[in-house]
């Protein structure tokens, strides 16, 4: 039996579409976790990134944070938090947020730094206040890169939230982890398909948001 048969069997089984362990419930859980973690990380990372990028200070510290964020093993951190804090939302949310902040923060900073200084100076020369310079000149130009930072963070969260099933969390990882324990490969492959689909949907969502929010002129200038 090949992978496609497993996928077909998983999705055509009615039992997988309802109840506590049904696909709709698990998908909703996974989206909920992702939104919560991404929202928290963005609420912390975006303002700091915008401010440090605007003023141009703290680049070295941020580079350090980026390396540290990468070096932290997400899965290990989650298990450690679970052992320290016990069952609940916090042991999973803390690692998810901690891991999502560096890409958002550092990319936002770099995006702001990479804005061409000439239009920024022109805006100041025209008498724009600093907040206007930030929100009406720098932010629109930096938006594609900022979105790509948010995108990496979101994909990282979707992926890591899957692993969280190992420490008794819900979401789509349940199918994979439970399936592995139950030697139910159909369930494992079904879960993997759903997770991959969700990651690709996230990618597509950010592509769409980029099309809608990035101004025409900026998109032409940076060429993709």
């Amino acid at each position, binding site marked *: 039996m090949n992978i496609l048969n497993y996928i077909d069997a998983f999705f055509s089984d009615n039992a997988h579409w309802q109840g506590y362990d049904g696909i709709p419930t698990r998908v909703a859980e996974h989206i909920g976790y992702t939104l919560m973690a991404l929202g928290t990380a963005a609420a912390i990372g975006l303002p700091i990134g915008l401010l440090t990028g605007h003023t141009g200070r703290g680049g070295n510290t941020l580079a350090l944070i980026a390396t540290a964020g990468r070096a*932290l093993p997400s899965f*290990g951190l989650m298990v*450690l938090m679970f052992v320290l804090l016990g069952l609940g939302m916090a042991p999973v949310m803390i690692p998810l947020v901690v891991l999502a902040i560096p890409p958002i923060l550092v990319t936002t900073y770099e995006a702001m730094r990479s804005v061409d200084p000439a239009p920024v100076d022109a805006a100041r020369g025209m008498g724009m206040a600093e907040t206007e310079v930030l929100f009406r000149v720098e932010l629109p130009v930096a938006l594609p890169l900022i979105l790509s930072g948010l995108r990496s963070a979101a994909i990282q969260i979707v992926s890591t939230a899957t692993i969280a099933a190992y420490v008794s969390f819900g979401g789509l990882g349940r199918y994979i982890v439970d399936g592995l324990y139950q030697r139910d490969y159909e369930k494992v492959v079904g879960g993997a398909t759903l*997770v991959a689909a969700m990651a690709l949907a996230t990618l597509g969502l950010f592509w769409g948001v980029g099309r809608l929010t990035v101004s025409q002129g900026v998109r032409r200038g940076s060429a993709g």
Partner: protein
Amino acid sequence: MSELFDMPSDLQNSYLGLVALHLREALLPVLAGLLASLPIAQLCVRLRWLYPPVLWVTTVLYAIPSLAFFVILIDYTGLSELTVMIPLAVYSLVVLVPAIVDGVRSVPQETLAAATAMGFGPVRRYFQVQLPIAAPAIIAGLRIASVSSISLVSVGMLIGNQGALGNLLNSGMIYNQPRLIWLSVVGTAVLAILVDAALIVVRVLLTPWMPRSTSARRLTAKEATR
């Protein structure tokens, strides 16, 4: 009381053994990724239209969560190290291909013309001029790929204890020994930092003409990791 580095015997490894296993499982894929990216990147430099689709494909592959990637491969490669290493090699492409393309493209036209004028053929020019000038960018990519690879190997624990240091997470849970979990997390993080530092040293040795500071290195969106 057990000693700090005592391992449960079912892991069939000492702590250092696990560290060595972890390094191999994390770095061999990056090496494979590098060997694959060099020709891919060269093609992208030669044929400009090829670059956007290649970037697109690597980005999509990179988005597939590691656990999903692992378990789908189980059907083909079983509960083996290879099942962990193949996705890691694929993930490294998303960082390495752009790093090499940008690095090779950043070689000034005059430098290439000078090399040609000195009688360098295309192959010799590639190895003796373009690659050395691209080296800092390539190593910056290697640093990111290696560090994230080291962090991701641990997830291999979920598929038949193929996670090297990550296997300690499971042992820590089933034997109720937080010590083992600490050893896994701290060990993995320290390993990542050491490999990162080693690659900086390699860069300094390979490019003696560059300034020594690494802080000037610019981060880009592609460098953000999962």
